């Protein structure tokens, strides 16, 4: 046995274990920190569940909404545009008439500020990357930042 090589082997195996553990932890936390394919995929999957629980009854399974009542979430700047505005709609609700592609929508959307930062990030990432939409992910950190400066009602 070549004892000179032992420290290197030990060092290498420790490094391997640590990175492995780190990877595992990261996976468990769904870490959407970097927009890696894995992070995006996990966020979309989690967001789909949030959508099914809190959004589908008004915005519908195809996210095309209900004429005159609940607005569509497909190909609209409300969804694909400014992230802060979009996060605020979820946090504060939406109670004004909105016109999208010549159609007005008037139903009230309740505040969903009871959702966790991660849940809001996931559902918005899901909506921005589904139904024909394609836009960057939204992170829990971004939601947290908007929530911190959001008006207190």
């Amino acid at each position, binding site marked *: 046995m070549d004892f000179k090589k032992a420290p290197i082997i030990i060092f290498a195996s420790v490094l391997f274990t640590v990175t492995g553990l780190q990877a595992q932890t990261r996976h468990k936390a769904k870490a959407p920190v970097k927009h890696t394919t894995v992070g995006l995929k996990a966020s*979309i999957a989690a967001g789909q569940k949030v959508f099914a629980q809190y959004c*589908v009854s008004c915005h519908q*399974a*195809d996210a095309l909404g209900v004429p005159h009542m609940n607005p569509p979430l497909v190909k609209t700047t409300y969804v694909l545009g400014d992230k802060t505005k979009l996060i605020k709609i979820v946090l504060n*609700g939406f109670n004004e008439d909105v016109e999208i592609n010549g159609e007005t929508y008037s139903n009230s959307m309740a505040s969903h500020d009871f959702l966790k930062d991660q849940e809001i990030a996931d559902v918005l990432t899901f909506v921005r990357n589904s139904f024909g939409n394609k836009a960057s992910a939204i992170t829990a950190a971004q939601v947290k930042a908007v929530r911190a400066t959001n008006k207190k009602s």
Partner: protein
Amino acid sequence: MKNRKLLSALLPVAAIAAFILFNACKSGGPANNGKDSLNTTTPTADGGAGLKLPAGFNAAVIADKLGGTREIAVTPQGDIYVKLNRAKNGKGILFLHQEGDKATVKTGFGTFGGTGVYVKNGYLYASSDEEVFRYKLNAQNEVISPDQPEKIVTGLLSRREHEAKAITLDNDGNLYVNIGAYSNACQVEDRKKGSPGQKGCPILDSAGGIWQFKADKLNQHYGDGVRYATGLRNVVGFDWNQQNNQLFVMQHGRDQLHDLFPDMFTTKQSAVLPAECMYALKKGDNAGWPYMYYDQEQHKKILMPEYGGDGKKEGGQDAIDPVAAFPGHLAPNGLLFYTGNQFPEKYKNGAFIAFHGSWNRAPEPQAGYFVVFQPFKDGKPSGEWEVFADGFAGTAAQTASGRAEHRPCGLAQGPDGSLYVTDDNQGTIYKITYKK
């Protein structure tokens, strides 16, 4: 890599689509589980309008692409007034003349969008979401001064939700206006999970009921009217029953039982509950919203969960019972008592109801988009209701997804006993006739 990304983005869409399709196939079109089953008469193809009707009936599309056609009135001369939900080219009311199986727009007037239109005693009445107007008619029931309506009622609450002001008149010079509640269940925060019901629901002071005004007095406000009936969340379809000399209304029941109370209601229960109720009203009646809802399967008035209910505890002890109850969320937008002689005897004095179709059944399949007949005897519902005219939505998949092509809204009876149905999605007017 890119493909994989795309695939993972599309997967949820495909899953949802498959779920809808699965549910649609499972239930064979409109929801039918147990007592929610939709009774149908033997359908036959009609004359090209794409509707399914009982044998002997025929439907013709007499006009289309008119805009958001809401309520409709047909004059003794057979001319048509129809109200648009939004004014089109500055015209909110259209006047159409019929020749054979076609109706042609002769003129448009009234700059306001809205829902209600009614012809009575030499006047055309029409409503915006805040006001009611009337126009004097000549001997041919044509509007004399389209630019100079008289304002009958003004300043009604319109807070986006349930904003449509449906109107009807009795035989004693009174006008009835629905003022819908600007809320789902009078929660402190509307439609927010966990938000409780407001004690002594303040909405009921100025909405959530039917108001009675004088049909010929100008510029009436709340103070000039009478809250004729309360505890009605939202009414669009209503009609004066000439046999009973009484007001009948169809209420749109509350939404989102599962969303707000997932521990008490499954998505399946939430899709069919609560009932869409028909009420026969007397002055001073209370139909119970927001403190109760009607469960058509338990045949009971149930305490609203926002007010401490659990889906079983009874409530609404001071509220009247409905005279008929229909499956949830079908959205009754038109009610008409048939007094004509053209249709077979069984239809006489019975009620046609235009169900606009559901949206609040998701993720369960949507349903409705049809005209129902509720038989009546001696001024009361008698026997099972049946689907009279179906096929407005298009395919079964279009019904299930809620992407209906046509959505029935307003009903009217012509001087010859023909039945008129509007569709506010594509602006179609159907005329349904019967031949022995």
